[in-house]
């Protein structure tokens, strides 16, 4: 959260340290950002699930989920899909260029509830960013003992669209502390990256049906495109997960990110301030307007 006495519209100045092109089609890039004033890093204390407003001076601001974990010190990661005005400009920028960063904003995954429990992580497409943050956070040696079984299902259309390939290698390893299932909708013939680990072929809901069967003492956090959510939620319910055990992250159009400009509401709740993370039980009490 931004301190109450700070001007909540004023971004921290940051510098692009590195840009990683994540996907074969160049539509997704990860930006590694470093605060110009190192003291700002402490002011930016966050938990996985939160987001920030990234400022490109002269172009505007965009809300982007924080992809790095609080356990990764000295920098922040944001994975951005090229869409419109600001994201396209961002994609044309270079290391050394300056940006602004406002945040951390919004709420986070239910960390207090997740401690001492089994955690299931389900993600699809480019929405995997805050789930990356969560996995790195939970599998960090200092934090891993706080959680019971960790299971993840992550899918993309094809191998070249999978994010964070370096981390995937690690998570698929024996000692990663997480049972990681990666799936692609289809295997391309001329696949440039052939992974060293086993990869499912099929949609996320099908893999969830096969691998996520035990709702006992478990919390699910999920994030993905509408189609993935639409077909995954019934599978989870069939497996016996209650609405109060399932958390998802919403993406509404935003401007202020601090609950003042009005546009991101779902009923009486503001996604930027009361969210972006809501349990299915909470969403059930809101008007359906997402």
């Amino acid at each position, binding site marked *: *959260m*931004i301190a*109450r006495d700070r*001007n*909540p*519209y*004023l*971004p921290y*100045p940051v510098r692009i340290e590195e840009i990683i092109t994540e996907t074969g089609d160049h539509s997704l890039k990860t930006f590694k950002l470093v605060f*110009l004033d190192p003291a700002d890093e402490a002011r930016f204390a966050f938990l996985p699930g939160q987001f920030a407003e990234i*400022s490109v*001076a*002269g*172009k*505007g*601001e965009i809300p982007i989920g924080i992809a790095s974990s609080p356990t990764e010190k000295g920098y922040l990661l944001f994975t951005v899909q090229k*869409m*419109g005005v600001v*994201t396209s400009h961002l994609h044309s920028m270079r290391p050394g*260029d*300056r*940006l*602004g960063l406002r945040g951390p904003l919004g709420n986070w995954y239910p960390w207090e509830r997740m401690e001492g429990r089994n955690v299931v992580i389900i993600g699809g497409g480019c929405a995997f960013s805050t789930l990356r943050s969560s996995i790195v956070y939970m599998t960090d040696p200092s934090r891993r003992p706080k959680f019971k079984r960790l299971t993840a299902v992550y899918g993309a259309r094809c191998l070249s669209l999978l994010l964070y390939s370096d981390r995937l290698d690690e998570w698929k390893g024996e000692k990663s502390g997480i049972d990681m299932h990666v799936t692609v909708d289809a295997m391309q013939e001329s696949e440039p990256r052939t992974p060293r680990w086993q990869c499912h072929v099929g949609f996320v809901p099908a893999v969830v049906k096969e691998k996520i069967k035990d709702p006992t003492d478990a919390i699910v956090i999920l994030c993905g495109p*509408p189609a993935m959510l639409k077909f995954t939620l019934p599978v989870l319910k069939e497996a016996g997960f209650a609405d109060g055990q399932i958390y998802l992250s919403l*993406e*509404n*159009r935003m*401007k*202020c990110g*601090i*609950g*003042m*400009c*009005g*546009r*991101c*509401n*779902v*009923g*009486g709740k503001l996604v930027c*301030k009361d969210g972006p993370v809501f349990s299915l039980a909470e969403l059930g*009490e*809101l*008007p*359906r*307007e*997402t």
Partner: protein
Amino acid sequence: MRTRYYERDAFPPAVAELRRAYRVFVPVRRGDFHAFAEWDDSVRPDFDYRKTRVPPKGLVFPQSERLLVFSTDERDPEHDILREAPKDFPPQAVVGIRPYDAMAFRVLEVNFDTPEVRDPWWLRRREATTLIGLARADEDATMFRTENYAGPFDERGLDVIVYDLGRGYLAKALGEKGEAALAAMGGDEPAADALREVEERIARAATPELPAGRLRAQPAAPELPTGRLRAQPVVPLFEAEFWDEVAAPCLNCGVCTFLCPTCWCFDIQDEVRKQEGDRIRNWDSCMFPLYTLHASGHNPRGKKTQRVRNRFMHKLKYYLDKYDRGVMCVGCGRCVEACPVNIDIREVAARMNGFGEQVERHDR
């Protein structure tokens, strides 16, 4: 508590005294309408006005405001670093504001001054503002009462209340800011019983009969029917069938929101001239489809009915539930007056308020 009496002709010069210490905003005639304008030598105040077309909300929350500045010139060592736009917040007095417009600031403050974050510009400008209200029984047929507007003598949002007695004005300070303003205005001590007499008349009737002239008796504006809204469950109300019918004639012109003293939605845009950039905040409207359009093309309120519904649900239900301080409306009637297709918040409130009743009857 300071009170002052001004003969009719002595009032404008007394207000002019305020200009020594404040920027003074007064109602002035602009063509067919009235507006608040800074009192300099080019304007003539018209305290006999009824209602301005655009509310004075912009004096605290400007329609367009520069928030941050930056340079995009890479030779500037501070390039691309956003800074607060330099500005100051001199004391300002809004003289002649009507009680409903003053109450609107109370309705707005919960959005800009929250337990977690505070809007520095809104707050500093609000702090620098003294509201000197004009109390006169001249409600028009589009107006109505809500929890946030108890009628033309409602003091709650004001620092000074000025009763228009016809032959003159009786002013009463309501707190520190008001004391300071009245002290600066000068004027005479009123006759011993003058204030008591006025207040007794106000207490006696909903719309009191006051001395001749401006404070004539008038039928009290009706209450907005909202008594049952608090208890209504939100989802069925949202899914009610009447929304299509309510929204059908709407043109999405946005007038109802731009003229509303209690609407606060805004947009933020960057502008660059040469290599000097500004980050600017502008009033926005939930009636426009662009307001909620995602970059993906998806729009949670892409249909007109969804937007009209959001406006009324926000004002009459979400706000009520969230803050427990009445509805987000002060009954000024501007939206009723200005809507080109006569969409009337009083009718919509009646439908929303009565909605549960129909459901209950169904259930039996």
